[in-house]
């Protein structure tokens, strides 16, 4: 998803980056803010690391452990009952991933975590071919067609005749594939978590500037990136925003399990949580410190409007694309508004340059 996504938005992104550039100049030229805000920023980053980020990865790690157990129980004795027992753990783990999705910098970026475990849509034909031949390489970065991670499990575990497919002769290869997918997901998340518990923790909390590569810069960039993902691959594209209104429901995140809407809502709720800093100081409080109270109010209000609009869509999302297009359209518009607030207004207020796109023409 990511590559197409970036290319198609490149023009808009470039403009935004330039805008952020220009606006940033009225603030602090070197990306460092006056010393007086350093203590605040330091405490804020500690709050992010210790109260939000590490707990989020720990939760995902635990949920993946539970998912792994339930899936292994199913693989050991495939039945409707054991399959049903994987449903909740799958959903819990996938929802938990939404709580770390925005953290795609530092350790996650170094592991290419998001790329490997949640590039969607998945490509059933390639997965089936991999199972058939026993030849697949999970170390190749995905661009648009995924054969691993949550999207692969979504396809494999929610197939209409899953119990049959995992039973009897010939199911061994399919079982191995699922186990390989899970082992890889666990390894990537464990590595990411251990880096956050290792030296990167210090790197993150000691980075008090807002320039490219700084902690605040990374957070704001990823806020915008997640909003772009919500507007594009999570809702807009399957809804037909890039295909003249022709719906591609099967391109949804979590299409087979039918939890696309829940995932989108979890993603946005988590994003709001990161924006506010939950019970501690976050970017929201940083804006107040910078005397941008009005912007902060506008962002918070838009978060709520957008969440309400997403909640108003009947589930599953894939059906709502066709049956309730007006509600989806409204949510899409709210997402766009929030995206603009974050990507231009918030970025410029914090003197952060949006850099995640490939804006190069050559």
């Amino acid at each position: 998803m990511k590559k197409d996504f970036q290319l198609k938005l490149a023009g808009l992104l470039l403009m935004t980056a330039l805008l952020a550039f220009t606006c940033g100049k009225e603030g602090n030229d070197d990306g460092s803010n006056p010393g007086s805000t350093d203590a605040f920023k330091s405490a804020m980053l500690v709050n992010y690391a210790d109260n939000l980020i590490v707990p989020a990865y720990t939760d995902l790690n635990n949920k993946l452990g539970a998912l792994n157990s339930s899936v292994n129980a199913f693989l050991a004795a495939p039945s409707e009952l054991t399959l049903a027992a994987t449903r909740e753990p799958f959903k819990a783990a996938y929802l938990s991933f939404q709580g770390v999705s925005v953290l795609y910098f530092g350790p996650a970026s170094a592991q290419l975590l998001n790329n490997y475990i949640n590039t969607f849509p998945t490509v059933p034909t390639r997965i089936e071919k991999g199972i058939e031949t026993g030849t697949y390489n999970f170390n190749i970065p995905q661009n648009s067609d995924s054969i691993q991670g949550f999207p692969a499990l979504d396809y494999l575990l929610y197939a209409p005749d899953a119990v049959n497919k995992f039973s009897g002769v010939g199911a061994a290869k399919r079982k191995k594939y699922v186990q390989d997918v899970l082992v890889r997901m666990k390894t990537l998340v464990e590595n990411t978590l251990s880096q956050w518990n290792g030296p990167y923790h210090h790197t993150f909390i000691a980075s008090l500037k807002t320039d490219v590569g700084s902690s605040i810069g990374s957070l704001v960039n990823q806020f915008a990136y997640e909003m772009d993902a919500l507007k594009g691959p999570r809702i807009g594209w399957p809804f037909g925003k890039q295909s003249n209104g022709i719906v591609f429901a099967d391109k949804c995140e979590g299409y087979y399990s039918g939890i696309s809407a829940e995932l989108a809502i979890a993603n946005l709720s988590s994003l709001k949580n990161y924006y506010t800093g939950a019970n501690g100081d976050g970017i929201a409080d940083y804006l107040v410190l910078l005397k941008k109270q009005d912007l902060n109010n506008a962002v918070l209000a838009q978060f709520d409007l957008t969440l309400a609009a997403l909640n108003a869509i009947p589930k599953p999302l894939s059906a709502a694309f066709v049956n309730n297009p007006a509600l989806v359209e409204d949510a899409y518009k709210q997402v766009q508004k929030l995206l603009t607030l974050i990507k231009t207004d918030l970025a410029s207020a914090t003197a952060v340059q949006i850099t995640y796109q490939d804006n190069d023409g050559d």
Partner: protein
Amino acid sequence: MKNALFFCVLGAVVFLSSCEKEDEIQAYTVPTTYTFDNVEYKESAARISMWLGYTTYLGRSIRKVLSQDTVNYLWNNSNAAYTADVASNIPYPHTEINKLTFNLASKSADVNTFKAYADSMVAVSKFFNRPGAKGVAGKIGSRLFNYTGLEFNQAVAKGLMGGLSLYNINAILDKIPSDDNTIVVAGQGTAMQHNWDLAFGYVGIPANYDTTTAYTSAMENRPLALGGYFAERGKYLKAGGLVFEAFRKGRAAIVAKDYKTRDAAIATIKEYLEKTVAASAYYYVTTPQTQVALDAKFHSLSEGFGFILALKYRDVSSKLTPANYQTLLDIIKTNFYTLAEDPSNTKLKQAQTILTNAYGKLQP
């Protein structure tokens, strides 16, 4: 020998003092475009067009296996190798280039190095159809990387901005003060004027360059190569306007024999061309720190690789020390997958610091 030298020195002194006695330089104006009598710089400007054709062909590796013969012919400008596909809508299109007797190979610094990078792109192009990964050459997204994540065509394209442009411009400007400025050759002016014009041609900007114009690739007379990076990465430094002004001022000063102004222009040109390369290198060791998609990240790093190669051709008076330059090279020659696996971007941050310490603030 000794006597000859003595007379040279004596001559220079006499000349200088006679200048001082005359005490004034005729008033002259500096035109807003690079328009003077007897201006001619086809050789250098055409090499910039060749640069575009050559590097465009190397870029075709994303969709086909490159021909080693073609790469050789383009480099040597033989066998009518330039085609409409790679060299159109530029000051010297393929039809013109193919008629010329000069080439890139004869005027680029470190020819063997740059040729080897280009040849490596040919070798890697065999894998344009398979996915790349750590230790495996191939495609990631729409880009083609070697087994360490490097795009060789970027090493060539950006590296030659130093090895072709910066190198030749600095060499010419170093020689300018000793060039003859009295014997006018019709159409070319004096040796000093002609060489100055040749230096201008290596910058890659049009004679009517305008920093406020939003140039597009549809425009035939657009900034190319290093000149294209004034707007792309040298904006914060305002390098494009400064370099263009210095070239016009210096050329007018040469006509008026105002050597003080000429020498000031030489200093400005050298400083800001080098800083443009440095600012580009800075940008491409900075941006990848927040890029997560490997194709975007490695593309940036590949550009950084090329621009750091280009910094080799900085002026002798450069504030970037040889030791620090070597550190930059070591950093950017690290396997890009290894760089990507460091969540703290320690090495890239070190590169940023080296560049900022040497040149001051390079980007907003």
